[in-house]
């Protein structure tokens, strides 16, 4: 087991290093093969680990940070949750790597691309498998760096580089809170091991637990693009589409959920923390869903939908439904990767056109993309019996189960969000694939034929997305696989609700989803389609407001960025150069002035010096007289 775990990590790392260091010298094919091979190798190891898995294990490989009572060894911890996530990550990333071979087929810096992609997988796996928090933090920051570098992959565009920078900085703000939580836990419990921390958690006073929980929540919010740190994710779409699929949909952005779930035994004892988590999740889910309704960039729609779906997961954690959150995390990984990859196909086919209003009628032209994409859309919209339907519903059900006014209103908000989700998902589908083609655009360029490797990867994802529900079927259909598998992990206890209630809730959810579909159909498939599209392109006030993400960016620019820049400039010019150096120069000038005093006596006339001597005589005799009297 120790070997498998090590290989799971080392393979992507080795692949990344090879590509980073000598990738430029290798033939393209070799580099691509290595990059994909290592991920699939890691997947195989994960499968082997799965087959050999009996009970959670900790594997220690060496010391990392250890001095005095601070101990953070290089140690991995494999339990059911991390095992499943490892499988998912290696599998999805493996597919995306394959897809990238096609997508980046014409890109010159393929070595850099694959190196970063591999390193990302490594860091993500470290994050998932780490047995202690500093190591987890290593993965946490590592994925952040890879995300930064990959968002700005096409660095010559200032927009892309800026987007990467924004992602890095905003997530770092969250990371800081996470880091503070880490050292604080060290202070409280004297250990860094996740298992020990969770074990010792009951010893800490509740107030402290609340604060720790909030800090972890901020950390999670940064990485998982939750309010108020959600602003970076839409911009992150500047990166290549497979990157968006891998990092900003399937894996990295769910790290926050993973963290909260991991530390749940610690933070779960504080109702305040849980409420805060739930509110953050619910509010973000709703916020992002509204924004998604008004986007015109295909990838931005998906980005907002990602934010929204992760909001659901966070909401699930806040409701204490870890299994549901984990379940949604899995299905979301499949269908969101699928959607992004599909979108990537569309974008490639249309020569990097991302504006949905310039698309339309692609159903006929790209059938190989359309059908898998449709599967993804169904999942995202929570169409009954799709994977997304079950997982989302599990969360909503858990929230409802919690009861109380807060959770009930969150449940209602969640339903409303589900409606919006269905609406914008189908809006996207209808605008892009149905209706008339934008002839001007198409005639100019014509469609590019897609490499087979790109479309073929959509299929397994579509299957997994649609059929994901079987992983954890509701109780009335038999016991969920995941629930059973996760059951023994602390914090993952199964939710118990009556079958009837569950059925009713699912019925409501199905209805909401269908309602969203209907609204979208009515708006975009009916006769008004062209009118609606024209109006949306012109943009009403509300539309623009939503399109700009409620002007959150502008708000931050006003509140933080501009004062920061001004303050920096002031401190440099005003304090450093004017106040401190000015004071020193003043001192120097003062010295210069003082220097004139003694040299003023040196008039050049001999009489002055004689006067000096005579004055000395007078003074010394006067002093003698005084001293002796």
């Amino acid at each position, binding site marked *: 087991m120790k070997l498998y775990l090590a290989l799971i990590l080392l393979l992507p790392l080795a692949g990344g290093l090879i590509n980073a260091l000598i990738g430029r010298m290798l033939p393209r094919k070799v580099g691509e093969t290595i990059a994909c091979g290592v991920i699939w190798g890691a997947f195989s190891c994960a499968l082997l680990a799965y087959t050999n898995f009996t009970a959670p294990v900790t594997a220690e490989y060496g010391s*990392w*940070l250890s001095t*005095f009572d601070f101990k953070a060894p290089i140690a991995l911890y494999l339990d059911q949750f991390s095992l499943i996530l490892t499988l998912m990550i290696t599998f999805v990333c493996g597919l995306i790597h394959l897809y990238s071979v096609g997508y980046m087929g014409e890109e010159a810096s393929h070595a850099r691309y694959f190196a970063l992609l591999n390193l990302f997988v490594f860091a993500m796996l470290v994050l998932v498998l780490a047995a202690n928090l500093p190591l987890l933090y290593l993965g946490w920051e590592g994925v952040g*760096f890879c995300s930064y570098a990959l968002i700005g992959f096409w660095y010559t565009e200032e927009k892309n580089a800026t987007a990467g920078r924004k992602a890095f900085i905003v997530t*770092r703000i969250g990371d800081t809170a996470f880091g*503070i939580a880490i*050292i*604080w836990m060290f202070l409280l419990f004297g250990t860094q091991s996740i298992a020990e921390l969770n074990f010792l958690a009951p010893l800490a006073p509740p107030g402290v637990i609340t604060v720790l929980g909030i800090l972890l929540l901020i950390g999670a919010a940064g990485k998982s693009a939750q309010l108020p740190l959600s602003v970076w994710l839409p911009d992150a779409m500047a990166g290549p589409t497979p990157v968006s699929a891998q990092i900003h949909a399937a894996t990295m952005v769910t790290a926050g959920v993973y963290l909260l779930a991991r530390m749940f035994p610690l933070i779960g004892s504080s109702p305040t923390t849980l409420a805060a988590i739930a509110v953050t999740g619910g509010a973000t889910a709703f916020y992002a869903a509204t924004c998604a309704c008004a986007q015109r960039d295909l990838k931005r729609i998906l980005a907002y939908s990602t934010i929204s779906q992760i909001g659901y997961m966070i909401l699930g954690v806040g409701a204490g439904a870890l299994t549901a959150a984990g379940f949604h995390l899995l299905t979301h990984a499949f269908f969101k990767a699928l959607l992004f990859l599909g979108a990537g196909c569309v974008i490639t086919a249309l020569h990097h056109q991302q504006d949905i209003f310039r698309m339309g009628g692609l159903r006929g032209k790209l059938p190989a993309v359309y059908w898998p994409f449709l599967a993804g859309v169904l999942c995202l919209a929570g169409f009954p019996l799709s994977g997304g339907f079950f997982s989302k519903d599990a969360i909503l059900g858990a929230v409802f189960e919690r009861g109380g006014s807060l959770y009930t209103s969150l449940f209602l908000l969640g339903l409303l969000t589900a409606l919006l989700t269905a609406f914008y998902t189908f809006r996207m589908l209808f605008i892009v694939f149905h209706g008339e083609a934008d002839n001007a655009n198409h005639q100019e360029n014509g469609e590019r034929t897609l490499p087979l490797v790109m479309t073929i990867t959509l299929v397994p994802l579509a299957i997994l997305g649609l059929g994901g529900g079987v992983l954890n079927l509701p109780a009335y259909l038999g016991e969920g696989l995941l629930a059973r598998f996760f059951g023994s992990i602390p914090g993952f206890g199964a939710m118990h609700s009556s079958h009837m209630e569950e059925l009713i809730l699912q019925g409501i959810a199905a209805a909401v989803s269908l309602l969203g579909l209907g609204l979208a159909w009515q708006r975009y498939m009916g006769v008004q389609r062209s009118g609606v599209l024209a109006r949306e392109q012109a943009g009403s006030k509300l539309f623009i407001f939503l399109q700009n993400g409620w002007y959150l960016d502008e708000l931050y620019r006003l509140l933080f960025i501009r004062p920061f820049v001004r303050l920096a400039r002031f401190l440099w010019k005003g304090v450093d150069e004017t106040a401190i150096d000015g004071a020193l120069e003043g001192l120097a000038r003062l010295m210069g002035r003082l220097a004139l005093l003694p040299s003023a006596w040196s008039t050049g006339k001999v009489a002055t010096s004689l006067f000096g001597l005579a004055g000395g005589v007078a003074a010394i005799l006067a002093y003698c007289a005084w001293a002796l009297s």
Partner: protein
Amino acid sequence: MSIPILSILVFLPLAGCLLLLPAWNCRRLARPIALVVALTELTLALWLYASWKGLAVNPFPQGFLLLEDAPWIPAFGIRYTLALDGISLLMIMLTAIVFCVGLAVSWDSIKERTSLFLSMMLVMEAGIMGVFLALDLALFYLFWEMMLIPMFFLIGIWGHGRRLYSTLKFFLFTMSGSLLMLLAIIALHLLYAQQTGVSSFQLQELLKVQLPLETQLWLYAAFFLAFAIKFPLFPLHTWLPDAHTDAPTAGSVILAGLLLKTGSYALIRFGYPLFPQAAQMMTPLFYSLALIGIFYASLVAFAQQDMKRLIAYSSIGHMGYVAIGIAAWQPVALSGAIIQMANHGVTTAALFCMVGMLDERAHTREIAAFGGLWGKLPLWSFFFLLFAVTAMGVPGLNNFVGEFLILAGTIKSSPLVAVLAFCGIVFPLIYMVRLVQEVVFQKERQPLSLNDLNPREIGILAILALLDIWMGIHPAPLLEMLHVPVQLLTGGTP
């Protein structure tokens, strides 16, 4: 051990200067001589590192691995005492490495008065080695001042820009602190002589002196001022950006890599042990200056237009963490602070090297002149990104190790400071990312025709990069080396 290896470490560079004399006008001969001397130093340092565990079996008193002691100026009570423990061993290795880097990086760029340059470098190496090894306060002070002169010449002769202003500013700033420290050293010596009737400047002896609190405070203030200027702590830092910016590359490398470390080292070695109560009382001041420094320097760094200046300000911020780690005076934090000294030495030295290399090619350091270098200088950009990421404190690279240990330790003695300092970790990221973006990414802003790194430069940077990664992934041997001295310093038994 019969070979006085510590004395060799100190005096070999001076002997190297004499070796340079015959080759004074022959640049092709002088450079290898100097490099060989520096490499010999490095070999010695590494050899010490390889054998420290053996030496630790039979340590000298106070846990020193090696001790060389001889009377020097009995009339003043000054002895020639050099000693080595884990902390100084780390610093010695850093010194040896940074000097090799400094010599290598200026291999081609110093075209005028090469021999003078090389001899200045060697003299400085001797001075810095002496500072890190001296255990007699007077001897320490001698080395402390001695290392200023070569730096003064280095900035003044081979510098750029307002080099005369900068070098004088540097010299006067550091002198102003150290002169008062000299008085304090003498006063301490006299107090000890009063109490025991023995005249000595040796640290182990002076540690026995009983001081009333008020005296302690005054003396500690004098020491602290000297060290705070070297650190540098806000608001005594303004010499640093000027000195760094105008110094030649090797000068900046040594300034950032080593000279700043002498202040923190001396505070650990002398300041705290000699005046424990006073240091305890001044801790709030120390904390606040360090914290202000972290935030202030990072903000100012963000506003800079000149790459070197930006990195110089970033040094102030990073050294703020070292300051916090020392102020906490707690084993984990102190280990972190010491390891961070080495980490920062390597990383900042590398960054200054890189800026120097760019400056040699483009003859400008304005951030606004560059852009899109990834396309033109892929190797340079690769290394630059790596070192920038290190400076941002990304885990797995060395800066993280130091900063994280510092903060994890500090939270035990002062949670508020640790939390605030942790918040400061965001800022290096902000300005470094900005620097990287504007220089390495984006579109080219001025058409510059530049050549990528040559093998010599790749070699330097690769070594530094490996060190960065090695110390980031596997700092355990170094931490182990620091264990005993840190424990002794913080009042434990080995």
